[in-house]
């Protein structure tokens, strides 16, 4: 019989509650938790398919199921027992510490770990070993928001909450494609707009994202000019008398300096620098300042910047100056990218933090923590942040690295350095749930960790709400919980270091959490009033000190801030342009960001072919005019080159970008996008290009802006190979194909899925290109992996021309369907044969014409286009066809679409895109 377990979604920071259905130790379904205050039962495309990522087939093919160890770098890892693995690791770490001191080791963790996991690791590094070299991928994600809050409001605490959406009269969305990155939050924004049509929404973003669909005003500012914009808005506010001098006088400090600073930020100058009109500037400023309640929502566009802290602070300045804070519907609300970046910081999981928002730099704080943990001292030497840590490893300073629950060989900027670090480090431990991440290839020791559906603990979402994470099924294989692995390792290491053996007595995550709770007593995030039992009942927001029964929905309502003097501090940081400006050599601004249906390195979302329906393959987007100038057509391969590296990727036109701008999704790491440079070095995916230059305060790298040049790649020989495969093989085959084609100048390898009807089937698509055809042997291997070697396969070969084609037909009586294809040499036929295969259209009439070259189908086959609605598998072409018959207002036509095709009626993630398509087509008169 099926049991239901309440837990949370492991993706973005909205922190939706899920109800996991499991049967006989196997997860069989998932639905939104109707009681959870983050989502009230809703889930997005990613969340609603979570159970599919935990299927038996996916687990068998993608999970790391036992400890593995490499005898030598590059060698195939061999399984070993847990005790051997942990003893060996402790031995290596103890030796490095003995020979080179505690700062020769580093821990790189993840915003996807649970609070309990984090706490144990933090204590292990800073308490037991005595190094502050512990940082997490939150550094790439939230640290600028943290620094911004602390600089101005005094504490790392988002003062607002989701409920404020209902009370806001103006939403000011900056550097956030909420519609894609936080879909459920965007549903709530849509609800709020529906409930209060007068609500004004301003979106500030260089790109015209789907989030703009709901906006009254879109400021397409130049990349990295946010600070100038905010200073300019303050300039206008002062000029127009829209500030609140009373509030400023009563509750803030440092306004004079800021006032002087923004004097030069005239509308004229702002329009110049930001590339927006003065009218738009004035309108945005008026809305922000004069609306009864203005709520800012912001994300990576603000944080991933060389002036990330300044951007955050400059925006908060506006809230303070207009008193748009500490009230329902008002405040600066930073959205979190990861499910538990917040919790990580609560326990001090960054190189500059200590538990409960204490500061490494603060001697008193260090003493408190040392006393609490019962260790002699917490080292004063600040630890290395993510970028610094890998640089140190590359320089030989850090010799042993412990990586948990994250994939630096995919997600860190400047991959050349990251790879050098992973190669140079003497000992690399990777604690992972998935076996196929890029970082796995560099690890000496691989430790299998539990993941969603198997873990127990807590997470904190964007609105300071702590939820219980619960296990629905037992650990897969020999996997263990992250906190447990850390504790086991810590005990072994303590023995060898001859100290702190009693530091890690934990038996359950709850025992860890209780210790963590104690550290918060009297702090801004005091949660001494909570316990697991209370959280079981319902998720709670902090602070919730002892005695309290309810958490605080919003902070600073009394105008007292978390600073010594209780006054918020205005930050007077001048505008600085992006660290590396566009130049004649690198004339394009490369921006990176999320896709709607993927998440981070795709180790989880990448297991579902159906999630590739919306954006099937890696592409870099450019403005059509820029493409015309370079004589580039959709699908052409280009060399994307920055000062730090180069990749090859197909180009796609997008009018949503400004001129001289390019965009590529952050997800396309070496697991999916590869190739070889002319010198034979492997191309490392999107972050081969990005810059490690970071904000001096928050140390967060400028992932949102890299100057690149874009040149057409002349790779005349091309390959397209795709096939439907059995569920329990597809993902294996994908990984093997990716590895097999690794030597080619360009390769991209992705799964694809069966949308809507008969969903659940998985296929694999391999695209490659080169200067000349590869050895026939390679193509034969590819055919073999894709099941194209049998008698049921039609073949064509013209070796001199490098032409080779194979089409596998599944014949059922009279009918025949294409189930596998390989086109090598001339791949124009993809235009129609791909649709035959993916849509399983009848192919019996084509006969051997299936092997022909022409770009037009022998008889009419309609390319389906991308899938817009993942829930019901509704394709772009289907929607356009329907729209062509629709009449009436936009709303009416949208309703007609939803009525006829169901698209956007389940999770709603595609509604903004549907609206855009509706607007783009003329109604039938």
């Amino acid at each position, binding site marked *: 019989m099926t049991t239901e377990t309440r837990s949370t979604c492991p993706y973005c920071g909205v922190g939706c509650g899920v109800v996991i259905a499991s049967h006989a130790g196997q997860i069989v379904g998932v639905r939104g938790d109707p009681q959870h205050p983050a989502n009230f039962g809703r889930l997005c495309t990613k969340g609603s398919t979570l159970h599919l990522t935990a299927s038996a087939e996916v687990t068998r093919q993608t999970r790391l199921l036992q400890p593995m160890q490499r005898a030598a770098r590059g060698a195939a890892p061999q399984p070993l027992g847990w005790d051997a693995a942990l003893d060996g690791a402790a031995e290596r770490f103890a030796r490095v510490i003995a020979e080179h001191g505690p700062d020769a080791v580093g821990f790189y963790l993840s915003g996807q770990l649970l609070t309990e996991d984090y706490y144990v690791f933090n204590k292990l590094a800073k308490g037991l070993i005595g190094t502050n070299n512990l940082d997490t991928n939150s550094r790439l994600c939230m640290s600028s928001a943290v620094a911004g809050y602390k600089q101005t409001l005094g504490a790392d605490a988002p003062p607002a909450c989701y409920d404020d959406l209902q009370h806001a009269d103006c939403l000011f969305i900056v550097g956030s494609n909420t519609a894609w990155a936080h879909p459920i939050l965007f549903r709530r924004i849509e609800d709020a707009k529906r409930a209060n049509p007068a609500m004004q929404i301003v979106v500030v973003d260089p790109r015209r994202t789907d989030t703009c669909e709901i906006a009254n005003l879109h400021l397409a500012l130049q990349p990295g000019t946010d600070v100038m914009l905010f200073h300019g808005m303050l300039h206008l506010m002062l000029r127009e008398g829209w500030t609140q001098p009373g509030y400023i006088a009563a509750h803030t400090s440092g306004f004079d300096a800021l006032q002087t600073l923004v004097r030069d930020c005239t509308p004229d100058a702002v329009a110049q620098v930001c590339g927006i009109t003065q009218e738009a500037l004035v309108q945005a400023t008026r809305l922000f300042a004069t609306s009864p309640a203005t709520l800012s929502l912001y994300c990576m566009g603000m944080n991933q910047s060389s002036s990330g802290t300044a951007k955050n602070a400059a925006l908060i300045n506006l809230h303070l100056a207009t008193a748009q804070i500490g009230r329902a519907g008002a405040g600066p609300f930073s959205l979190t990218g990861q499910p538990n970046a917040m919790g990580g910081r609560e326990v001090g999981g960054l190189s500059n933090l200590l538990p409960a928002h204490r500061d490494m730099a603060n001697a008193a704080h260090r003493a408190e923590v040392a006393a609490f943990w019962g260790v002699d001292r917490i080292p004063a030497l600040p630890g290395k942040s993510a970028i610094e840590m890998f640089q140190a490893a590359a320089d030989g300073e850090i010799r042993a690295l412990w990586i948990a629950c994250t994939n630096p060989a995919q997600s860190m900027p400047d991959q050349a350095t990251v790879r050098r670090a992973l190669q140079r480090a003497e000992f690399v431990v990777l604690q992972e749930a998935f076996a196929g991440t890029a970082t796995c290839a560099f690890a000496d020791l691989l430790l299998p960790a539990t993941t969603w559906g198997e873990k127990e603990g807590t997470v904190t979402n964007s609105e300071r709400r702590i939820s219980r994470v619960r296990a629905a099924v037992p650990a897969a294989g020999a996997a263990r919980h992250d906190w447990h692995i850390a504790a086991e390792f810590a005990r072994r290491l303590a023995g060898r270091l001859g100290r702190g053996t009693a530091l890690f007595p934990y038996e359950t995550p709850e025992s860890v959490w209780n210790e963590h709770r104690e550290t918060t007593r009297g702090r801004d995030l005091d949660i001494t009033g909570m316990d697991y039992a209370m959280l079981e009942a319902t998720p709670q927001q902090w602070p919730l000190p002892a005695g309290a029964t309810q958490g605080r929905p919003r902070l600073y309502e009394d105008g007292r801030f978390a600073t010594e003097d209780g006054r918020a501090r205005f930050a007077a940081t001048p505008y600085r342009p992006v660290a590396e400006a566009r130049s004649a050599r690198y004339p394009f601004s490369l921006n990176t960001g999320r896709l709607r249906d993927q998440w981070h390195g795709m180790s989880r979302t990448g297991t579902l072919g159906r999630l590739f329906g919306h954006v099937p393959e890696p592409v870099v987007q450019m403005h059509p005019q820029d493409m015309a100038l370079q004589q580039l057509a959709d699908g052409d391969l280009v060399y994307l080159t920055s000062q730090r590296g180069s990749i090859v990727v197909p180009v796609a036109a997008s009018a949503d970008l400004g001129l001289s701008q390019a965009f590529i999704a952050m997800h396309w790491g070496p697991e999916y996008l590869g190739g070889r440079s002319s010198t034979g070095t492997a191309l490392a995916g999107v972050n081969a290009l990005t810059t490690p230059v970071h904000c001096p305060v928050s140390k967060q790298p400028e992932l949102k802006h890299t100057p690149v040049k874009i040149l057409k790649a002349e790779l005349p020989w091309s390959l397209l190979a795709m096939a439907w495969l059995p569920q329990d093989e597809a993902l294996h085959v994908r990984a093997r194909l990716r590895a097999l084609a690794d030597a080619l100048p360009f390769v991209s390898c992705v799964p694809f899925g069966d949308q809507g009807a008969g969903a659940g089937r998985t296929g694999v698509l391999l695209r490659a290109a080169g200067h000349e055809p590869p050895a026939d042997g390679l193509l034969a291997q590819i055919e073999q992996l894709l099941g194209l070697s049998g*008698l*049921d*396969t*039609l*073949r*064509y*070969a*013209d*070796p*001199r*021309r490098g*032409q080779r084609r194979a089409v596998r*037909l599944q*014949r059922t009586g009279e009918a025949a369907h294409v189930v596998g294809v390989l086109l090598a040499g*001339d791949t124009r036929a993809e235009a129609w044969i791909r649709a035959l295969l993916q849509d399983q259209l009848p192919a019996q009439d084509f006969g*051997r*014409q299936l*092997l*022909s*070259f022409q770009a037009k189908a022998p008889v009419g086959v309609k390319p389906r286009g991308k899938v817009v609605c993942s829930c019901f598998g509704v394709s772009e072409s289907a929607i356009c066809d329907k729209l062509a018959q629709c009449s009436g207002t936009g709303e009416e036509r949208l309703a007609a679409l939803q009525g006829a095709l169901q698209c956007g009626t389940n999770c709603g993630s595609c509604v903004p895109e549907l609206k855009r398509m509706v607007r783009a087509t003329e109604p039938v008169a």
Partner: protein
Amino acid sequence: MKKMKLVMVGNGMAGVRTLEELLKIAPDLYDITVFGAEPHPNYNRILLSPVLAGEQTLEQIVLNSWEWYSANGITLHAGKKVVEVDRTRRVVRAEDGTEAGYDRLLLATGSNPFILPLPGNDLEGVIAYRDIADTQTMIETAKTHRHAVVIGGGLLGLEAANGLMLRGMQVSVVHHGDWLMERQLDKVAGGLLRSALEQRGLNFLLNAHTAELLGNGAGRVRAVRFQDGREAPADLVVMAVGIRPNIALAQRMRLHCERAIVVNDTMQTVTDARVYAVGECAQHRGIAYGLVAPLFEQGKVAANHLAHHGIGRYQGSLTSTKLKVTGIDLFSAGNFQGGEGTEEIVMSDALGGVYKKLVIQGDKLVGACLYGDTVDGNWYFQLLREGRSVEQIRDQLMFGQPTP
């Protein structure tokens, strides 16, 4: 004025086609006399296989009826084998003494099947496959006997085997090569052909070398023994291991012969300008053709020259092959084996039983080997003969003639 005398030795397809061409352009130039060894008027030798297979009758394959000869004033000596020609007196003489003088002599003696020099090759039931008599023997034997062995897995052998099988015999094909029809097919196509024929019930012994034919004591063959000692029961042994040009007479006439009678581009023997030779007995530019298409082209040229037009020149022929076994489509032409300096385009549909190979040299199509789907055969053959560049249509070649 008095007509010149034209005598033709050999009453086969090549010769008679020459006469037809001649009568078309110069009906009254010659008094024509024809000697034929077989007691039949000219028939279509190519269609003997359908006759054997029971798909056509002897009557249906006759090309020129007795009436045709008389209607055209041709004196026909059917069943009379010419044994001597006196080139000085310009007279031919048959076995029975019949004589005829000539001003022009046309030799169309064709070829004889090659009989392996094996012990027992004179036993009853050991035959070749060449003419109506052989065909009738096979038809009769099939009524009374069970086991047949065909030696030779070439075109003719397979057609014979197929026919005998259709007439109810258990047939084994003995072939010394690695695959069937190795002169017309490449290995792959040969393999497809073999499995197709095996499914129809034929039995194949490849790489098998016959040592001797064993008699049953009463003078009839009973089995075939191979060099490796194995035996196969055989009440009938058909040898289809190739043909030899029939040049005995020409040699006695002291005409220059190599493999066959050497002729020039007007089909005149190099030795004696009054004497022409066409068909399988003629060797032109080193080649003696065994297929019908070239022979007809030769006939046209010879007739043209006999008619004193003298403008026709024979330049040699490209040949193509089709197997006349119903339900098996197979075509090959030119240099389908490929090799040094050539490129190949191959298409296959194993389940559909289709295999196509095109051989390209430079920018020209030089060979084709089709199995299972031969509809484009004629188009390829045309491209072959025209020898025009296929560079522009190379990628379409395999998918049939582009419809303009």
